[in-house]
């Protein structure tokens, strides 16, 4: 039996204990004293019940739905960049970020929407900041979706290109099984349990086929570009076809392996004192990236690990559908806050999967054969290392690494399918009328929403895209917490508990966007000074390795400067509007009779 301090066991127990304090201590206190949730108060689900969008749902069902909607690739891959500064800073951010900010945002967004009659963030932003504020939000979300799509397409393409080519066949297997299940369910009207059984049998079969029929493309450095193209084709179909035909049954089937993997890893982490799986990574170096690529710990760590600590996407989910189905106001804490704290445990499980691997395997040595920050195969290998002893098989068993590799792919693919559909709808809203109405067309919007991210994905480094995605995502979180803070100020509730996190998130993420933009700008400047090392650092092969494609590297760096500058400008403009609105709300609230956070009851 390994020494308990050498294994991740103690950290799992400590994190669970701190999250318990966050929920039953800080969470309950905020719920009772700041928001004053009231089980007797009618929620929008009852007030506007229509059986479609508004209807009360049990807190257990809604917790499951909320968790499934927020937990995806973010908590798995974010820690991969975060551990550059050592596993301890990453762990502290996963614990502290979630304790003080993460759950507060998800829960607050849900409560804000409930108190605003189930309205989502668009109308609430309009109410607090006017028409320009909402347009600003729309522009920000469009850019945000393009960056998410670029990061996810890049990752899916790289995943298919890794793991010895074993994950492509199972992915296609899940998609085909999903299509078949959709037909059996909706056309043949077969029993859902029978359909699930058939679908899962096909998934297992495709996993086995993946290990014996690996798919490797023959185009060398261009492979990722081709994989990216295949991914775009699949996503195009997912965005265009009716949801019951493709996305719904596919996501349903994908749920089973994805959540089985989470359970296995958490059990594997808890069993480490008995399985002798020990921590291999160093706890530091804390302040800087030793390979000099990412930058200083602040602000980079705080945008690298998004979901699991805090994520802006969650605020959209909490205020979009969950708030319309909340049975009781008092359910907001277990559903919104509880789901977020549970996602923190998923991030912890992922972090542990990296912690049990050697530094050389995880970080690379910066050489051409083993470049820095590129071994994204680390997570499946780490997961297999944790799980193999409890299953009694070898960690190198092909079916196990293929399974965890497939889990990575399906987490990215299922979320990206929804993001692409969302982009199409937002594009329709933005360009549906006027001179650019062609861009609102569903085929054109989908093609733009996939084509532009594909171009970014196959040219830029995945970590560069991930940091932009993290910056935009975390900024959205900061803006969401500002909306919550404005509401609290308007109803004269104590707003400092959300104001401080909001300021921290807005300042940190804007700083991260500035850092990233400056890095790309510096790369172009260095090239003009005859230093080519920087310009090729931010792009991926073949552009990185082919001297004839240097012009493409310059162009990509220049485009990334523009993207970063636009994200920063739109985010800053939105932040300024929100802080102005907050200050105005404070002044207005001081002139009115005191009221509680529920907007009506007199304060004691």
């Amino acid at each position, binding site marked *: 039996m390994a020494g308990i301090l050498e294994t991740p066991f103690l950290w799992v127990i400590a994190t669970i204990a701190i999250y318990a304090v966050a929920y039953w201590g800080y969470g309950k206190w905020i719920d009772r004293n700041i928001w004053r949730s009231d089980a007797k108060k009618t929620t929008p689900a009852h007030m506007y019940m229509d059986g479609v969008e508004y209807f009360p749902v049990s807190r257990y069902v809604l917790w*499951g739905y909320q968790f499934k909607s927020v937990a995806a690739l973010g908590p798995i891959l974010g820690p991969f960049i975060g551990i550059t500064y050592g596993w301890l800073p990453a762990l502290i951010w996963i614990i502290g970020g979630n304790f003080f900010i993460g759950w507060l945002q998800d829960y607050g967004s849900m409560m804000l929407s409930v108190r605003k009659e189930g309205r989502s963030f668009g109308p609430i932003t309009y109410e607090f900041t006017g028409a320009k504020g909402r347009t600003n939000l729309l522009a920000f979300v469009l850019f945000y979706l393009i960056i998410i799509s670029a990061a996810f397409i890049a990752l899916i393409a790289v995943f298919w290109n890794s793991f010895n080519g074993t994950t492509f066949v199972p992915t296609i297997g899940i998609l085909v099984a999903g299509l078949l299940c959709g037909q059996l369910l909706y056309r043949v009207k077969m029993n859902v349990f029978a359909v699930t059984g058939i679908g899962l049998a096909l998934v297992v079969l495709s996993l086995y086929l993946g290990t014996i029929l690996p798919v490797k493309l023959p185009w060398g450095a261009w492979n990722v570009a081709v994989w990216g193209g295949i991914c775009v084709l699949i996503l195009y179909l997912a965005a265009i076809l009716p949801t019951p035909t493709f996305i719904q049954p596919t996501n*349903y089937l994908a*749920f089973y392996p994805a959540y089985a993997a989470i359970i296995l890893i958490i059990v594997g982490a808890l069993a480490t004192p008995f399985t002798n799986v020990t921590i291999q990574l160093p706890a530091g170096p804390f302040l800087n990236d030793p390979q000099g690529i990412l930058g200083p710990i602040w602000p980079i760590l705080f945008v690298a690990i998004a979901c699991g600590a805090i994520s802006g996407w969650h605020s959209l989910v909490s205020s979009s559908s969950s708030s319309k189905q909340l049975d009781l106001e008092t359910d907001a804490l277990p559903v919104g806050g509880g789901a977020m704290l549970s996602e923190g445990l998923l991030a912890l499980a992922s972090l542990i999967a990296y912690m049990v691997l050697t530094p050389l395997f995880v970080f690379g040595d910066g050489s051409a054969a083993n470049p820095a920050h590129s071994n994204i195969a680390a997570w499946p290998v780490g997961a297999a290392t944790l799980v193999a002893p409890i299953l009694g098989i070898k960690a190198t068993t092909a079916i196990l690494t293929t399974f965890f590799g497939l889990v990575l792919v399906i987490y990215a693919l299922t979320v990206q399918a929804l993001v692409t559909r969302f982009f199409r709808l937002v594009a329709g809203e933005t360009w549906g009328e006027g001179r650019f109405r062609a861009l609102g067309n569903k085929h054109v919007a989908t093609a733009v929403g996939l084509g532009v991210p594909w171009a970014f994905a196959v040219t830029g480094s995945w970590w560069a895209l991930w940091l932009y995605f993290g910056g935009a995502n975390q900024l959205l979180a900061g803006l969401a917490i500002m909306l919550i803070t404005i509401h609290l100020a308007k109803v004269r509730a104590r707003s400092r508990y959300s104001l401080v996190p909001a300021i921290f998130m807005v300042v940190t993420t804007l700083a991260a966007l500035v850092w990233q933009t400056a890095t790309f700008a510096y790369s172009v400047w260095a090239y003009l000074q005859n230093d080519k090392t920087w310009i090729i650092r931010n792009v991926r092969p073949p552009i990185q390795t082919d001297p004839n494609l240097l012009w493409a590297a310059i162009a990509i760096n220049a485009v990334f400067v523009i993207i970063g500058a636009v994200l920063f400008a739109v985010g800053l403009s939105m932040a300024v509007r929100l802080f102005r609105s907050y200050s105005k709300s404070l002044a207005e609230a001081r002139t009115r009779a005191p009221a509680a956070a529920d907007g009506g009851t007199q304060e004691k």
Partner: protein
Amino acid sequence: MGDPKEAPSEKTRARKVKEGVKGVFYGMAAHGHVTAALRTRMYLEHLFMFITLGDMLGVPVIPPYYSLKILPYAVPNIKSWKQRVFRERDFTDQVF
């Protein structure tokens, strides 16, 4: 007979736990798909109501004779249809 205020029995507690686990599983695996299917049906119903009772909105899509024949079947849905159709909707409502 036991006191109704008595603490829940083991059996009741076990049933609650079972219901909770079932609920979580259903929420994770299927709830999103069920609501998406309901929403798809809602949009189709909007279209149906618009085609059959468009006169109510000043848009006579089909001749009033046929609308009148369908009226008894459509009347029970008019209230909820109006409620849904007139509801403020935003792009941020479309996330899931």
